[in-house]
């Protein structure tokens, strides 16, 4: 019997992931139809945007056949038939995982990352590997061995980074969901620049097993999608204790209904607008957009007040010391011996092999961060830099704890500016690092944070609003995000042009 609902006859890319899964689970739309639609979209746009570093239709078809068998057996699969693109620094068994680096060019992991295991178990389809900044080190996705990613809103612009391919692919409707990693804003900042939603969960909420480490005390995996409920759906699958990640929290996680439970959310949340996120370096249009959102919330009866996090002014300096110190240690494993790239130059000893392989395999940005981290950990400088950075980190955590005594949630911009032209900031490390100024605090303190699109600037490029919650307060975070999302109606009002700024743009409406 044909179980197809009349409305399911055509896949129009407007459906949420939640709707798609529901249709697939009720057998009202064949998995193959869902997958073929996204395959066609990916084929159309993949080269134009350079979103993928690996894409293999044969492997997708294999997953579809396997899923159909499981559905025939009556398996209840929370992500049934959902195409999901995975950032290339997250291990996928037998599928290239390069962290967009030459040094891992041909690496195929022997195991799936924990999150990939969970997605497969829940019936999700791994839809390729997303381009990113090399080892997730970047804020513009221009530091990739495979070339830069283009922003679907203006092909001349960067998509943000480091999960630029993941965000751009969702914005261009090549997949309904992608997975990124966020060490200093790498899920939220590209989500903001591409007009989609990105979540960095609480540190320890999602296992980091199988994530190629950049800075282990800051790294966290998170989903990117077009709406908040879809992220909650994915989080309910990937957020689970993992005994093989020593930092994975052991407490039970809320289920999907609790994560999006409007009724269980406080009726009148108290919200703090962080002063330091509205200061120097934040574009006037981004500020205006934040103020509009504040007024919107006040209009609905929410208490929104200004709040100061005094030590935030030290956060960027502390972040780049801690992140690079950890990176210098984590990336020491890439030496041309056990896996990855080995230099073919003539070398006389092991040290020369290490040096040649690493010097040829890493890009300048990665080398710079490794050297910075090596330096701040070296004798004579350790206490002045690394020691002090950790004290700053503690002080910022205490500031946030204090703020959360008075406020349920905090808000501010995700990125100080909207997407910028490719090459514009590449020659100035500091101006690139300053792009993370609003996002790094959540990584330093381990708190959850989400970016939702809240408007367009004068160039018709998306602006992102960031919401931060206390540790493991994801339900409150997602509730406010849903409230704002339903008021702002961003995704139904605006769509990316898929053209460069020199060409005509066609916006809806």
């Amino acid at each position: 019997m044909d179980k197809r609902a009349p409305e399911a006859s055509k896949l129009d890319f407007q459906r949420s992931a939640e709707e798609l899964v529901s249709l697939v689970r009720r057998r009202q739309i064949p998995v193959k139809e869902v997958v073929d639609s996204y395959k066609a979209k990916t084929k159309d746009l993949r080269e134009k945007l350079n979103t993928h570093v690996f894409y293999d239709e044969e492997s997708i078809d294999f997953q579809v056949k396997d899923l159909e068998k499981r559905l025939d057996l009556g398996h209840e699969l929370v992500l049934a038939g959902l195409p999901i693109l995975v950032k290339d620094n997250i291990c996928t068994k037998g599928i290239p995982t390069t962290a967009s680096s030459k040094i891992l060019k041909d690496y195929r992991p022997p195991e799936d990352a924990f999150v990939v295991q969970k997605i497969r178990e829940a019936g999700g389809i791994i839809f390729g590997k997303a381009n990113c900044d090399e080892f997730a080190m970047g804020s513009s996705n221009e530091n990739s061995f495979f070339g830069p990613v283009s922003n679907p809103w203006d092909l001349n612009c960067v998509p943000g980074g480091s999960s630029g391919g993941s965000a751009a692919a969702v914005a261009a409707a090549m997949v309904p969901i992608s997975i990124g990693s966020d060490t200093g804003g790498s899920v939220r900042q590209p989500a903001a620049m591409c007009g989609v939603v990105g979540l960095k969960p609480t540190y320890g909420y999602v296992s980091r097993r199988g994530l190629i480490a950049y800075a282990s005390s800051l790294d966290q995996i998170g989903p990117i999608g077009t709406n908040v409920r879809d992220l909650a759906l994915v989080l309910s699958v990937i957020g689970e204790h993992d005994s093989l990640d020593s930092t994975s929290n052991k407490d039970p996680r809320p289920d999907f209904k609790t994560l999006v439970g409007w009724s269980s959310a406080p009726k009148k949340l108290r919200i703090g607008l962080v002063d330091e996120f509205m200061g120097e370096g934040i574009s006037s249009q981004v500020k205006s957009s934040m103020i509009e959102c504040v007024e919107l919330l006040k209009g609905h009866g929410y208490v929104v007040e200004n709040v100061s996090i005094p030590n935030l002014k030290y956060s960027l300096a502390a972040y780049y010391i801690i992140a690079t110190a950890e990176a210098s240690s984590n990336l020491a494993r890439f030496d041309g011996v056990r896996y990855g790239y080995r230099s073919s130059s003539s070398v006389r000893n092991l040290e020369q092999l290490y040096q040649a392989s690493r010097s040829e395999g890493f890009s300048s940005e990665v080398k710079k961060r490794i050297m910075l981290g090596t330096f701040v950990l070296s004798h004579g400088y350790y206490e002045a830099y690394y020691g002090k950075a950790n004290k700053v980190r503690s002080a910022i955590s205490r500031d946030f704890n204090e703020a959360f005594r008075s406020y349920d949630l905090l808000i501010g911009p995700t990125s100080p500016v909207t997407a910028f032209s490719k090459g514009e900031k590449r020659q100035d490390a500091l101006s690139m690092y300053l792009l993370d100024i609003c996002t790094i605090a959540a990584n330093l303190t381990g708190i959850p944070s989400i970016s939702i699109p809240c408007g367009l600037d004068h160039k018709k490029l998306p602006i992102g609003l960031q919401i931060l919650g206390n540790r493991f307060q994801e339900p409150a975070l997602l509730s406010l995000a849903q409230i704002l999302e339903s008021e702002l109606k961003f995704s139904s009002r605006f769509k990316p042009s898929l053209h460069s700024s020199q060409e005509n743009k066609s916006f809806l409406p």
Partner: protein
Amino acid sequence: MLITSQMVDKAAKLAHLILTSQEQEWFQKELQSIFDYMQLLSEFPGDLGEGKSEDQETHMRADVAVRSSVIETMMGQAPQAANQMFVVPRVVDKA
């Protein structure tokens, strides 16, 4: 703090990297601009405690040997391997 070419050389050596003279000059400039910004930390009062958030803990598990099923796969990824061992240049010089 002034970043000198000797400091860049030292960091590169510790990081097992070789830099061309052009790269060395570029890194010196880049690192200088980053360290200039980091001077901001000197304003931070130093007596505000140490360590990470007390909410974060590390869970230990039993130290039990587990047989791995991926050894052959991993050895197959090695740039150069023989007899289930990684081949590297000579480590010990001939006497």
